[in-house]
């Protein structure tokens, strides 16, 4: 085993270790970020003028693909009656969340913004009804419904009547409109 090979193995192990820690990091109080300011990412992807694209929210990285956040989001999805309109992602009163259509953007910060602000065709605003952390947790969970989150951080099913194919097996739907994947 050459030294370089061993070093790269070590590095790989270290990366694995870090991702492991990161993925299942438990945050009970949320990061001391500016949590009092509601997420307000614009769903727009056209920025006229000098194309001053706003920077992406730093909180996104904290919640995206985090197993604990997703699990809490899964609970809140039922508790906050998201499942009453969107069901297990198929939709009903609300739009489907397991498909590849995102009217207001499918990034975690866009979803968080949708939850906080509400949307004109019936999505109620949960501003003041949920804490910032809960909103992000919900958004992290909603991402899993269309297979956007890491498979090793999601839960295959909840202890309820069987519904969608397990999220551990959900294929990742492309984010459309395609530009919402960028930024």
């Amino acid at each position, binding site marked *: 085993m050459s030294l370089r090979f061993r070093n790269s193995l070590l590095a790989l192990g270290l990366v694995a*270790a870090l991702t492991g820690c990161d*993925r299942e990091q438990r945050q009970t109080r949320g990061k001391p970020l500016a949590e009092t300011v509601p997420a307000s990412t614009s769903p727009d992807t056209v920025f006229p003028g000098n194309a001053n694209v706003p920077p992406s929210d730093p909180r996104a990285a904290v919640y995206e693909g985090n*197993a604990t956040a997703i699990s809490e989001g899964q609970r809140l999805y039922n508790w906050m009656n998201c499942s009453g309109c969107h069901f297990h992602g198929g939709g009903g009163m609300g739009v489907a969340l397991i498909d590849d259509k995102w009217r207001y953007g499918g990034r975690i910060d866009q979803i968080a913004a949708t939850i906080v602000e509400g949307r004109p065709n019936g999505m109620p605003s949960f501003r003041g009804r949920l804490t910032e952390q809960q909103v992000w947790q919900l958004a992290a969970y909603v991402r899993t419904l269309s297979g956007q989150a890491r498979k090793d*951080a999601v839960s295959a099913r*909840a202890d*309820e*009547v*069987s519904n969608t194919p*397990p*999220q551990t097996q959900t294929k990742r739907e492309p984010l459309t409109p395609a530009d919402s994947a960028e930024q």
Partner: protein
Amino acid sequence: MTPAERAKQPPADVARDGPKLTGAKLDKRLAATWSNPPGFLGWLSSVDHKDIGRRYIVTALAFLALAGTLAIVMRLQLSKPDNDLVGAARYNEIFTMHGTTMMFLFAVPVMQGMQIYLTPLMLGTRANAFPRLNAFSYWTYLAGGCLLWVAFLLNIGPDIGWFAYPPLSGPQYGVGKRTDIWAQMVTFTEVAALAAAVSLTATILKQRAPGMSLGRMPIFIWATLVTSLMVIFSMPSVALASGMLLSDRLVGTHFYNPAEQGDALLWQHLFWFFGHPEVYIIFLPATGFVSEIVATFSRRSIVHYPIVVMALVATGILAFGLWVHHMFATGLPRIGYSFYTAASMAVSIPTGLQIFCWIATLWEGRPRFQVPLLYVIGFIFTFVIGGLTGVIIAAVPLDLQLHDTYFIVAHFHYVLIGGAVFPLLGAITYWFPKATGRLMSEALGKTSFWMIFLGFQLAFFPMHIAGINGMPRRVYTYPAGMGLELPNLLSSLGSAVVAVAVLLFVLNLVMSARGGRAAPANPWGGASLEWATSSPPPKYNFLHIPIVNSLAPLWDAGEKMAVVHGLRIDDRELLLTTVVSAKADVREPSAEPSLWPFIATIALTVMFVCSIFSPWALAIGIVPVAIALLAWFWPKSPEPEREPVIS
């Protein structure tokens, strides 16, 4: 004529041992045949039961040290009320790791390690059956243990308790991959334990020295046979359960989902159908140690050998009828509980008989207080308390109060430390000279014994009271003012004493292994066959296969033991005997060292670990496993070169 020769005239053109080929000349030839290939790869490919047994024991002791460290952390956390040394989540991981490591990675493997090391020596054979399977067993166990601990160190260790009840361990509440790692670790250890058990069972039934009929088998071998059979019958249950749990978690099946007509209690039934026998899988080998040590240090055979054997067998059978007493609080039908109460109480009869026989043996013999016997005495004093509290919690009305409290914690530590670890420490001291050729320090040994014994009582007796005072298990903290401060403080102090004592024991091990007094072949004057060969035993165990005529061959036959001639020396060959009366039956080649078991384990590990993340890993990962197995089982090249017979 020896029985072997009577059984079958050997072909005359192969090199064999015999009266004329003996001593150093034979030793050289046999050593060449039975030794490992050189180098690191040779080390990896070893199929020698002594290597594997030693690796098992050392690894298991390492896990004991790790899990013991966690125990100290827990005791520190609980030493005072409302402590905040470790948080709730971390504490849950710690006690899960402690229980899981102790049960799956220490207790069962260390017993199997002792069995793997000792069985062929006590039977008078050169290797165990299926030596490559044995090697595979160890590597698989090691892989499972590493998986669990690497995960813990990466902060993705399990946090669901060692019995992992769903739905807490299910896909919804068992967050992330923590539970999957736990469940897959169970699969690893199940595979390892089953492989070892199969090998041990076959060794015992077919490879005993000629003349060692079932009625002349050392008690420890009986205990090994019973526990191996128990492993074979109980482990599939938990492998099935954990497989179903993994499938619930990975592909969303509904085995444990009550909302889809699954049942959370299904897990408990399956788990305890394994879990309760597992306690005896740990405990029965320990009684085997005790019987051997008692006989040697009383300098007489065990009193009422048949009764001890029957007790072992009876315990092994009864152990499968008790599992519901772990589930008295689940609201199953009350009348059914009475059956399990009766069965749980009945299991104390065979144990009581064993204790009687040990005391009677001491009574009838001339006990000599050396460290192994001290551990046996400590064992009886401690274990009987655990057994009696076991009778208490077998009663439904009492169990409903005491279940899942610190009373239970006290009970099973009395049973498992008092009943299994004390004999194990005695057994390590007892067989240490055989394995290393050096004696352990008696003074250090006695000091550590007394510290462990007294420290243990201090650590665990107050837990009974904590439990009655209303302290549930698995709590990371408790409020002040409930009468829990003193018991917990005492327990924490006691655990510190035990920790120091265990360090002393390990120090003794290390120092003695380096510079202990050299040990003769039979330092304690034991009667069983392992003391007939040198200390440490040669690679091939015995120069000639001994012939056994009594229960205590070394005492009865002394120096003049009859031996078998005629086994090949240029190739690994064993003498198989008949199952009941151990008449020489056939010669059987024994497998050469091979890297393939190790490679098969690597392939299996890749498959198992990947299957935590994707079900496809099972379909794809099975291919390398199959290739490794094919290579492993590939028939040997034709007969090696013939050479003239020396006879």
